[in-house]
């Protein structure tokens, strides 16, 4: 009897599998019948898993952009969202699905460089242009002429923070990195290199500590650092771990400035770290209180309304997601077609594009050529602008 039941179960699984299949095919079928009036853009983000939080925020920005600019070449733009679960294996099938099953003409994403790198070769071979919003690892666009991105890179960001720390009079620094996270390790190392170069002193980085993904206790690391008394602590990390580091450092009586990267500009950091978040320093892509362009002004106004108090500030990744979408739309418009190569060439020819995060041009590698980063701090529970640092 059990056997029969198990067969029945597997049969239902198989059936559900096919019904899932047919339903999915039905949906595109209706749109392909009206092929002439829909252009599909794939969105490839982690919505669950380790980076699920950031992925959702980026997606919100992209969706908002789609709401503002729902049409290109006189056709409606349809966003097809897939979840890559912050997992590379999943990412490759997800992106193949976008290209093959959904027939998207372009792809936006992903939060987290690892999954973007994994999808890179598939995107390249399929000749479908992709626009990363916030993936800052150099390897994403390296040797891939179909992958572009709207943000600056880790080496640049590391240099900016090192510059800023030194401008503020820091002579020594301690670095905390999340061992196992490409973003954190990459940014941390670029900071170390720049800091040593700028101070001309190899001993200026007094402590380099690493912690594991999912660690929550940093007391031991921070106690070591406290004993070395650095002028500044640089701790690039995810929005989940950042508040823990900040809170524990302050509880241990560490008073020096704590700095981080773009991932820190996340309402969750201030919410979780509370009063201890006051005075942290981070570099980011844009400042909602000082819109760089006209586009930025209308974005900040509109998106604030859209959020309706759901989040106290606009996450930088949402702004980048927005930029990634409008950059792609602009290129499709200029290419005048949905052909992958044409769009790529149009992207390459992008000139002084006014995005939310500044005026954007692309380097030959496909990276947004940005030489200004915004430095922010937290004051009264709000992220406030303190400086822009330009690096040549």
């Amino acid at each position: 009897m059990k056997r029969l039941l198990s067969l029945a179960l597997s049969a239902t699984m198989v059936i559900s599998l096919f019904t899932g299949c047919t339903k999915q095919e039905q949906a595109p079928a209706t749109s392909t019948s009206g092929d002439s009036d829909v252009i599909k853009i794939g969105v490839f983000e982690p919505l669950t898993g380790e980076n699920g939080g950031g992925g959702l925020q980026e997606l919100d920005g992209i969706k908002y952009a789609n709401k503002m600019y729902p049409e290109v070449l006189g056709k409606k733009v349809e966003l097809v969202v897939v979840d890559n679960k912050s997992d590379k294996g999943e990412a490759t099938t997800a992106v193949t699905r976008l290209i093959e099953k959904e027939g998207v003409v372009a792809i936006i994403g992903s939060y987290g460089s690892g999954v973007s790198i994994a999808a890179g070769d598939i995107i390249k071979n399929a000749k479908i242009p992709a626009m990363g919003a916030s993936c800052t690892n150099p390897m994403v666009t390296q040797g891939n002429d179909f992958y572009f991105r709207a943000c600056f890179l880790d080496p640049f960001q590391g240099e900016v923070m090192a510059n800023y720390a030194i401008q503020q009079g820091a002579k020594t620094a301690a670095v905390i990195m999340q061992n196992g996270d490409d973003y954190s390790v990459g940014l941390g190392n670029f900071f170390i290199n720049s800091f040593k170069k700028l101070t001309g002193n190899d001993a200026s980085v007094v402590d380099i500590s690493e912690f594991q993904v999912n660690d929550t206790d940093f007391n031991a690391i921070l106690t070591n650092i406290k004993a070395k008394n650095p002028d500044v602590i640089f701790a690039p990390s995810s929005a989940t771990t950042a508040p823990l580091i900040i809170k524990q450092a302050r509880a241990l009586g560490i008073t020096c400035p704590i700095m981080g990267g773009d991932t820190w500009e996340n309402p969750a950091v201030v919410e979780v770290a509370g009063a201890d978040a006051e005075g942290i320093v981070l570099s980011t892509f844009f400042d909602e209180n000082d819109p760089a362009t006209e586009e930025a002004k209308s974005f900040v106004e509109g998106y604030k309304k859209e959020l309706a108090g759901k989040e106290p500030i606009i996450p930088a990744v949402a702004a980048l997601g927005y930029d990634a979408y409008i950059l792609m739309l602009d290129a499709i418009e200029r290419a005048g077609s949905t052909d992958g190569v044409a769009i790529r060439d149009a992207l390459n020819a992008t000139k002084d594009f006014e995005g939310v995060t500044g005026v954007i041009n692309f380097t030959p590698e496909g990276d947004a050529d940005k030489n200004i980063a915004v430095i922010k701090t937290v004051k009264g529970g709000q992220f406030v602008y303190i400086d822009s640092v330009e690096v040549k």
Partner: protein
Amino acid sequence: MTLETFLQQLANGISLGSLYSLIAIGYTMVYGILRLINFAHGDIFMMAAYFMVFGMVNFSLPWYISIIIVLIATIALGVLLERVAYKPLRDAPRMSIMISAIGASFLLENLATYLFTGVPKGFPDITFLTNSVTIAGVSLSVATIITPVVTIVCLFLVLFITNKTKIGMAMRAVSKDFETARLMGIKINRVISTTFIIGSSLAAVGAVLWGSKYPSIIPLMGVMPGLKCFIAAVLGGIGNTTGAVLGGFILGMAEIMLVTFLPALTGYRDAIAFIILIVVLLVKPTGLLGEKVTDKV
């Protein structure tokens, strides 16, 4: 290294260790009765933290009422888990029950991701717990001082229940010999439910203290503490409550001391727990305080 730094690290170790201990008691009790690694224990702990967030942030309840609600909800979840995932498999092979435990853990994690998303939630401030004091150059939050105390109190409570009460006697009987206990007229299901009630309430207390100390609440927060606390339970001798507390303290201290004395190896910190586990299993599989179990033919 200055004495101050060392004392600070010692305090760090005790505080982390006592948190591990608290959660490890739940593991060791369930294992003692059911001979089952309750893989979902870490996820029950995670859910308890979310319950606290909902109680205090979403419903703006004062902390003492929230804690009571969290206790009730967590106990309900623990008992439900036992009823749904473990009870139907009581006579099944050991492997099936373990797979069910893994499945339950997987389900709770996915459910939490689906319901609460991966964006970290801030654990509400219980002001008197998060205040910090400095004694002889050593900074401690009140939670850090209270945790070892709570752990010891909980240990004595559990020891009292298992040694001095009727249900405790039944628990010991069941853990010695399941079948005989059943024949002696002990209501096995009641005993098991009680075990899960105690284990889950400790997980809830652990979650409140953990959250006050590490206030970033995410769906996967229970995975690593879960594994490490299980290791602590094995280290102390699984099935032995005092052993679990001892194991938790040793594990917490070992992790902190690795970072203190061998800062170059901080990247290997998570490996320490597993290395301890394997060494213990090989050298003394019954753990520090465990009783010897012989195989029955």
